[in-house]
């Protein structure tokens, strides 16, 4: 419960309409897009300016009250679940585009701005902001920065971190820092901009961002390759890259995913295929046509059953929108879907797919696979039921083995969803004990009292790593 004097001080900063601690507000800020996680905060605040954020932080640090910054709560790692209570700071009121600089090709925005709205606005000015997480219709730029969101265009255009060039952020103490700027080069000291991107709200509250914009591609083509053999599709992915072609998008969907996505989006996808690849290339027309021709050859050489080109931009967009629904659509099979985003080097995609299916079979759990195959970022998704504790335990064992397999193949435990609560027990597997020490030291220098999103990234205990002997 929020102490009366804290509440009074917060109200004196924000006004009573923007400080809430009624049951309805607490319940509706106790979760995010992550399954099976819920924890009530003690209060919810809605600041409208950097100054208000700074004053709030001063109050909260005086009383040592935890604070969780929140955009739209669509993350998938438990990133905005207030696991130690405290205050949830909703950034929705800070949702303005402050400036689009057409001379420098940058945008300066507030964190609560909706990603899709921003993207659409930028496109209307003849510019392009590539990061496109599947939740972009709902998510905020601030949330994308906190989680370093990826998306369907990651392999060619990179992820959020590649477009954030300057930040304003409020530290736990209430002090305001500014990093970077409208600069394409800047090596003045440690790169705090990149450090804050993907810091999951554990280092500072981001209050403003300067983003890099690029000229949009002139031409685009989208194709669909269908396979009776999942591994043929996976091998195609590695082979396209080997052929020195980097498509704008290279997505894989397995049979179960094709079925649920089609059930939702009614696109008439082929339900008898074991896998499909959605491939998009963009750039100058000549180069795109040439790449698409080579990709078509590669697909055929891996025995694609059918290869077709989207008839219109609308059809292509429908296909990509349908793909973005995959994670939730899988809930059509079973009520709980737990998805991970183990990522491997691109050449290992087929090996990883084989590993995932082996592990699923071993633990007798249903795991569907889809994802951004082109950048090695797969989303193995268990369809299960949170009410079945025994099955959930098996799902957890399976995922543990999947993380293990990803690391063994030279990969990582998370490509774009973040560590949050869900993967914190495995972080040390990836970064090692010395790496953990460095990260903890960074955390302590930003936030000595551990008020910013506590309980995330750093687990109380690292899971014991079970190294499987192969042979």
């Amino acid at each position, binding site marked *: 419960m929020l102490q009366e004097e804290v509440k009074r001080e917060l109200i004196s900063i924000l006004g009573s309409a923007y400080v809430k601690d*009624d*049951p*309805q*507000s607490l*319940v*509706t*800020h*106790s*979760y*995010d*897009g*992550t*399954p099976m996680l*819920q924890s*009530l905060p003690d209060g919810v605040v809605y600041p409208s300016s950097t100054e208000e954020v700074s004053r709030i932080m001063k109050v909260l640090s005086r009383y040592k009250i935890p604070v969780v910054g929140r955009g*739209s*709560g*669509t993350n998938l790692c438990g990133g905005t679940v207030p696991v130690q209570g405290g205050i949830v700071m*909703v950034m*929705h*009121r800070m949702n303005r585009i402050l400036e689009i600089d057409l001379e420098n090709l940058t945008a300066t925005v507030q964190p609560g701005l*909706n990603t*899709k709205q921003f993207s659409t606005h930028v496109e209307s000015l003849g510019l392009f902001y590539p990061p496109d997480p599947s*939740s972009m*219709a*709902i998510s905020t730029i601030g949330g994308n920065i906190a989680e370093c969101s990826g998306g369907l265009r990651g392999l060619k255009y990179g992820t959020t971190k590649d477009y954030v060039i300057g930040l304003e952020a409020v530290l736990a103490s209430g002090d305001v820092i500014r990093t970077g700027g409208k600069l394409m080069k800047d090596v003045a000291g440690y790169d705090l901009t990149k450090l804050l991107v993907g810091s999951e709200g554990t280092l500072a509250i981001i209050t403003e961002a300067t983003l890099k914009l690029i000229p949009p591609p002139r031409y685009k083509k989208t194709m669909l390759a269908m396979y009776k053999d999942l591994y043929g599709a996976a091998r195609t992915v590695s082979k396209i890259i080997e052929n020195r072609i980097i498509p704008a998008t290279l997505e894989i969907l397995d049979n179960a995913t094709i079925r*649920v*996505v089609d*059930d*939702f989006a009614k696109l008439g996808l082929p339900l008898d295929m074991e896998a499909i690849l959605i491939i998009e290339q963009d750039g100058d027309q000549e180069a795109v046509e040439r790449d698409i021709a080579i990709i078509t050859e590669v697909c055929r050489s891996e025995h694609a059953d059918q290869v077709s080109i989207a008839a219109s931009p609308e059809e292509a967009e429908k296909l990509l929108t349908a793909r973005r*629904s*995959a*994670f*939730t*659509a899988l*809930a*059509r099979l079973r*009520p*709980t*879907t737990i998805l991970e985003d183990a990522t491997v080097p691109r050449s290992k995609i087929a090996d990883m797919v084989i590993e995932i299916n082996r592990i699923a079979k071993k633990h007798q759990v249903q795991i569907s696979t889809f994802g951004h195959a082109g950048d090695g970022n797969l989303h193995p998704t268990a369809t299960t*039921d*949170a*009410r079945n504790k025994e099955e959930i335990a098996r799902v957890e064992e399976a995922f543990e083995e999947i993380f293990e397999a990803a690391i063994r193949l030279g990969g990582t435990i998370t490509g774009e969803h973040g560590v949050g609560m869900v993967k914190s027990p495995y972080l040390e597997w990836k970064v090692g004990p010395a790496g953990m020490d460095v990260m903890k030291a960074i955390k302590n220098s930003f936030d000595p009292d551990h008020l910013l999103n506590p309980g995330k990234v750093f687990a109380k205990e690292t899971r014991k790593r079970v190294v499987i002997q192969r042979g």
Partner: protein
Amino acid sequence: MANGQTQPMNPLTEKLRLRLDEDQLTNCMRCGFCLPACPTFAETGLEAESPRGRIALMKAVTDGLMAPDQAFEDQMNHCLGCRACEPACPAGVKYGQLIEQARDAIEDHKRHKPLVRAARHAAFKTVFPHQNRMKWVGRGLRFYQKSGLRAAAHATGAMKLFPKHLRDMEKILPDAAGRGVVEQIGDRHPAKGEKIATVALFRGCIMDVLFTDTNIHTVDLLTAAGFEVVIPREQNCCGALHAHSGEAEGARELARRNIQTFKAAGVDYIVSNAGGCGAILSEYDHLLHEDPQWRDDAVWFAERVVDISDLLVRFGRKLDFGRDDAAGGTEPVRITYQDSCHLRNVMRSSDAPRKLMRQVEGAQYVEMTGADRCCGSAGIYNITQPAMAGQILDHKMEHAEATQASYLLTSNPGCLLQMKHGIEEHGLSGRMEAVHIVDFLHERLNK
């Protein structure tokens, strides 16, 4: 926050636990894809005002995480019930069913003030279930409008006794008819030319009192397109208002009577010209799924329900909407369309009306920004939640004005009245007229 404590359970909690479908609550995985589709979330930006938020509240109550307080009840009633979140939900969560179950439990639990109780009883039990009584209401309204009483009420300022939103609605009510569609044109109408199928018209209770001409025009369009039309005399109110207001048993009883009547008529399709009615008719199977005696007949019924636009586009002979004397002038007339939420989100019909409008010669169809968004009418929402409804309508009319259309067409009486009200309120009278799509098409039909 009585989590895990053993204290006597809140009686409303108990009712909600019994009513709410636990599977549907679990199926919401909180991805948030519904948020951009929700009008109340768009207006407030508050998570609690979103479908994900409301489902989380329902689940928190059944999980014992929170007691259902007044704010909880208000939040459940704050939902428009437009169900735009359902097509947006990749997991296929049946939000409409959940919100109705929640409201049903709340109503069941509630002790209304005597006046409200009497009004609810009068409306839900005494009037709506009986079409002949609806007609008496219609005749009463007609008497009020024609006898000079209305003029007197306006002249004496008696109307000022009512709150503004009720006065506004009274102003835009069309003239009521004393005689319904069957009394005016009979109950059986042969197809023009070769018969494609036999269809039954669902005339609707409000439709048949306030928009009788629309029902007559519907019959004309259907017969012209090759359908034989019957209008079963014994049909009654669809039960939508009951179901949306937490009177589920009342809705079920009306459903049983309608099923019986239409089954006896033995038709290929049951045609509705009101999205709100059509939607609940198409969900009779869900409404009666726990009733073994009626379950199969309810499925039979629900499968046959279709909106007039859909039926014309999918199965009808192509109609000629090029009547020479209709349009007048050489400039094409601009028309636009406001979706009926339940037609779009429940019956999933949004292309068919647009296709028909594009077929009208001398008319230029322009899409209105946010046409797929609720207009705030939402059954009786504009009467129960005037503030939010007004806010939503303001934004709607800005988009309507931007189309510069002369006609704003809709497919549902509630939306139509709300659009008429909006046009009046925003000073667009004389420049823009709200018309039922059937009436507009009928006007231009080359017979």
